[in-house]
């Protein structure tokens, strides 16, 4: 220990100590008898040896190399800029990808103590849901011993009336939500558990953005009374501007916040507080672990409670239905599906780094060869080869660090731009934290080894042209570009298929009108009456060809699936098939008097009754046997990519109407009249603010995800392609310039240009072909992870592979021929004389 401090002391006081040593040695010399003075030895050598004793020589050498490296880069600004640019791109892309993943999955949400938060979802033999029934949550809350707090959240919409009714996005939360998460208000106050007491005044909290937009940031709103769903409520306060809650996607957009306990007041017929059925009252459930309790322990402790619930409410809760617990303090969590996708993305961005390093490696190899003289002098002066290697590695490290700093800067802006383009919770903090900086630097070091080691060793050993490193660098670039281009081609093809596909129903002429009756406390008889009037009035509108009601709107956000049979279920009124232009292949549509019957899709019939006559079969549903009265053509309303989906249609029950929507087939372009259709629905009940949208926009939404992914991969592919081409050009130019003399001789001896090109580029051709093969194989392997993204296109689609390979081959050919041609135009005499 003492030794270490003494060493440190030496380092910090070097100059003084060395002067003192020098003084000692001078004094010693003086005191020696005159004749013997030369025995003292070389003072410089002595000083060096003395210095070495302190063990800081490595630092000296490092500083020396760094200073020299900086001088070198200053002298070749072209090399420096190119290298830094290439590195910045390669590293920047990786850092951007890492930032995204980090913020979404690994960075805890900005709430109090995120590590102790748990997210609960429902799992049962037949359904999996991200939600839990609210009364069940209340039950868990009251009877558990492992959770310090239980929180719940739900996003819905309400109508706020100041002068005219307008729809607002509402977040419903428990009384402890804000206080437990440590959220502070911007103005006024937020909910507390006391606000949940029966008889407490109805209250509402405003979201910051909404408060700014709608109330102009007026601080006097606190205490004002507004009408929600026609009922007065007092504004308690405003959330902080950066409040996201536990569900950033909704938290960011919610405009008002109300309490679960007061839903009976705002929406009297709402079953949310009473029904144990997930469809009626499913909301998001979170918990905070008591200190010392692990997630597993908490989940286990809640199991007996789940059993009790299932036993007490068999009509709403299935046997075996229970809670699944996951860490709740993060914006998103992994599911195995997405894990493959992420691994693929990681591979892709690493490939870009490969291309960048390959490029850089060749660049540095060429540069190292111009420094032969310098290396020879150093070797002659007594440097070891190890020393030279270390020197070159240090220079590469310097480049890498500057490159990664630039890449970090680049990715800062790129991340912001990407969030804007791709959409994501905008207010999440994407600024670099220490994790990202460390990652960026680490990547820089890794890259410097990749591209710097070979040139360093080559310089030290003074190897000449024939080196495998050059081949490997170039080959890596070509292979990596090949992979990226193939994947791009696959995704583009898949996307085109999706956009042009025939879904089995006409989505281009449909308007969906959603009055959201369930949010306004409609009882089933009222809902039936409302819907009847709505359909009657709408049918009389010009431009309306036909209407129908359905429980599930196609391509919407709700799903009713039987997971074991993989059948999508919908309750519909007569006219559904006509409205959506789905042909009925056999039998007939429902009529108003039908009961205990069902219509199935062709795929359903083929799957469950192969070889038998489906019209004689029955379907088991809700304890009854339903006779099949019709077969409809396949129309996968939810499953754009699920080839094994089938549909089951049931006649609408009165209870379903509260949540049903109206589908309208228009003879005019649907965008034109969707607004007026919405107004009609609103005119029947002024408390409602119905949504009206076109199915086409739903379709575009669903496709937008694929479009974004394809866009990103295309961008990466283009980047890799450009880098690889530049790299190829560089390599061929270099090879040609090295062999200028040989070309001159061949020309002088009478070879034709074609033969010369052939001779020079033959090896190059073989290398590129081999890389293309390797790249194709790698692409094939990686494309397996893309399978679920590729709609209607096999991940081994020959056309895509071929087009990518051809593009790369042709581009390589051009990149190679141009420098070669230029060499041929050189005068042979000049070529012969050139060294």
């Amino acid at each position, binding site marked *: 220990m*003492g*030794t270490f401090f*003494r*060493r440190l002391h*030496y380092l910090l006081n070097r100059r003084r100590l060395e002067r*003192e*040593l020098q*003084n*000692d*040695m001078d*004094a*010693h010399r*003086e*005191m*020696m008898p005159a004749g013997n003075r030369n*025995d*003292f*030895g070389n003072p410089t*050598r*002595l000083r060096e*040896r*003395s*210095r*070495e*004793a*302190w*063990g800081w020589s490595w630092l000296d050498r490092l500083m020396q190399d760094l200073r020299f490296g900086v001088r070198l880069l200053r002298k070749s600004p072209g090399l420096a800029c190119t290298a830094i640019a290439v590195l910045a791109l390669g590293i920047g892309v990786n850092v951007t990808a890492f930032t995204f993943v980090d913020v979404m999955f690994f960075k805890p949400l900005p709430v109090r103590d995120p590590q102790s938060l748990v997210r609960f979802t429902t799992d049962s033999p037949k359904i999996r849901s991200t939600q839990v029934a609210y009364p069940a949550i209340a039950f868990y809350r009251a009877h558990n011993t492992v959770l310090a707090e239980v929180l719940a959240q739900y996003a819905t919409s309400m109508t706020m009336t100041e002068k005219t009714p307008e729809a607002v996005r509402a977040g419903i939360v428990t009384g402890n939500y804000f206080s437990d998460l440590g959220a502070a208000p911007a103005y006024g106050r937020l909910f507390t558990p006391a606000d949940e007491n029966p008889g407490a005044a109805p209250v509402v909290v405003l979201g910051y953005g909404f408060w700014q937009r709608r109330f102009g940031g007026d601080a006097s709103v606190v205490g004002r009374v507004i009408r929600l769903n026609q009922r007065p409520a007092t504004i308690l306060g405003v959330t902080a501007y950066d409040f996201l809650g536990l569900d950033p996607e909704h938290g960011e957009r919610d405009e008002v916040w109300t309490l679960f306990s007061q839903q009976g007041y705002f929406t009297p017929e709402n079953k949310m507080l009473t029904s144990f059925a997930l469809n009626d009252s499913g909301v998001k459930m979170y918990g905070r672990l008591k200190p010392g309790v692990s997630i597993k322990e908490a989940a286990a402790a809640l199991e007996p409670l789940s059993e009790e619930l299932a036993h007490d409410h068999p009509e709403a809760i299935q046997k075996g239905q229970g809670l699944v617990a996951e860490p709740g303090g993060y914006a998103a969590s992994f599911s195995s599906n997405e894990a493959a996708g992420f691994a693929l993305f990681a591979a892709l961005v690493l490939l870009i780094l490969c291309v960048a390093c390959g490029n850089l490696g060749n660049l540095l190899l060429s540069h190292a060869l111009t420094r032969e003289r310098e290396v020879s002098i150093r070797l002659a002066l007594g440097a070891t080869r190890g020393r030279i290697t270390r020197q070159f590695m240090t220079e590469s490290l310097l480049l890498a660090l500057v490159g990664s700093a630039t890449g970090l800067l680049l990715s800062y802006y790129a991340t912001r731009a990407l969030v804007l383009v791709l959409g994501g919770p905008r207010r999440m903090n994407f600024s670099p934290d220490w994790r990202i900086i460390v990652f960026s630097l680490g990547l820089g070091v890794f890259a410097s080894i990749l591209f710097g080691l070979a040139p360093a060793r080559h310089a030290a050993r003074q190897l000449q042209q024939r080196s495998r490193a050059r081949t490997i660098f170039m080959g890596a670039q070509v292979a990596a570009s090949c992979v990226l281009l193939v994947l791009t081609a696959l995704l583009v093809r898949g996307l085109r298929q999706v956009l042009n596909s025939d879904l089995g129903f006409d989505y281009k002429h449909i308007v969906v009108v959603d009055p959201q009756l369930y949010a306004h406390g409609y009882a089933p008889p009222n809902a039936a009456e409302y819907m009847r009037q709505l359909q009657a009035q709408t049918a009389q509108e010009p431009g309306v060809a036909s209407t129908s009601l359905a429980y599930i709107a196609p391509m919407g956000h709700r799903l009713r699936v039987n997971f074991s049979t993989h059948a999508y279920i919908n309750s519909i009124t007569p006219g559904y098939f006509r409205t959506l232009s789905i042909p009925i292949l056999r039998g007939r549509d429902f009529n108003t008097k039908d009961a205990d019957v069902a219509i199935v899709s062709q795929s359903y019939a083929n799957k469950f009754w192969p070889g038998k006559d489906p019209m004689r079969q029955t379907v088991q549903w809700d304890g009854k046997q339903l006779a099949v009265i019709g077969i409809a053509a396949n129309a996968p309303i939810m499953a754009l990519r699920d080839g094994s989906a089938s549909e089951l249609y049931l006649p609408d029950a009165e209870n379903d109407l509260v949540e049903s929507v109206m589908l309208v087939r228009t003879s005019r372009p649907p965008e034109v009249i969707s607004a007026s259709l919405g107004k009609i629905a609103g005119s029947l009940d002024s408390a409602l603010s119905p949504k009206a949208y076109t199915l086409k926009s739903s379709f575009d939404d669903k496709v937008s995800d694929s479009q974004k992914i394809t866009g990103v991969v295309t961008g990466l592919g283009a980047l890799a392609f450009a880098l690889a081409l530049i790299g190829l050009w560089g390599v061929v130019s270099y090879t040609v310039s090295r062999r200028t003399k040989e070309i001159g001789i061949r020309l002088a001896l009478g070879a034709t240009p074609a033969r010369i090109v052939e001779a020079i580029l033959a090896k190059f051709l073989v290398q590129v072909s081999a890389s293309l093969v390797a790249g194709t194989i790698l692409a094939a392997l990686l494309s397996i992870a893309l399978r679920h993204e590729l709609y209607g296109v096999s991940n081994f689609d020959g056309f895509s592979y071929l087009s990518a390979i051809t593009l790369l081959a042709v581009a390589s050919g051009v990149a190679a021929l141009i420098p070669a041609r230029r060499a041929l135009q050189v005068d042979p005499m000049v070529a012969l004389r050139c060294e």
Partner: protein
Amino acid sequence: MAKNEMLPGTLGMLILRVLQPGALHGYAIAQRIHQLSGDLLQVEEGSLYPALQRMLLKGWVRAEWGVSETNRKVRFYRLTAAGRKQLQSEMSDFDRVMQGIAAVLAKA
């Protein structure tokens, strides 16, 4: 090995021993070793100062300012407690090795 060189590895021990009675500056150390050995051992100046630096690093000697015979400010090296311990240990190691060598030379 030339006539006036000392056994490799023993320079440190000799320096420490010579410093045991009191602090000396560099030249004095070389002189003392030369004299005490009866002019047999010649300290190579090229080894002296690096050896002193090593001992400073390990904390076996300490440097302090003094004035030399030529009226020049120069550093004197003084043995520390750790240095004394090191000296003892090196001397006993050396004795053992010498006994072993002597035994082999006497009998073989």
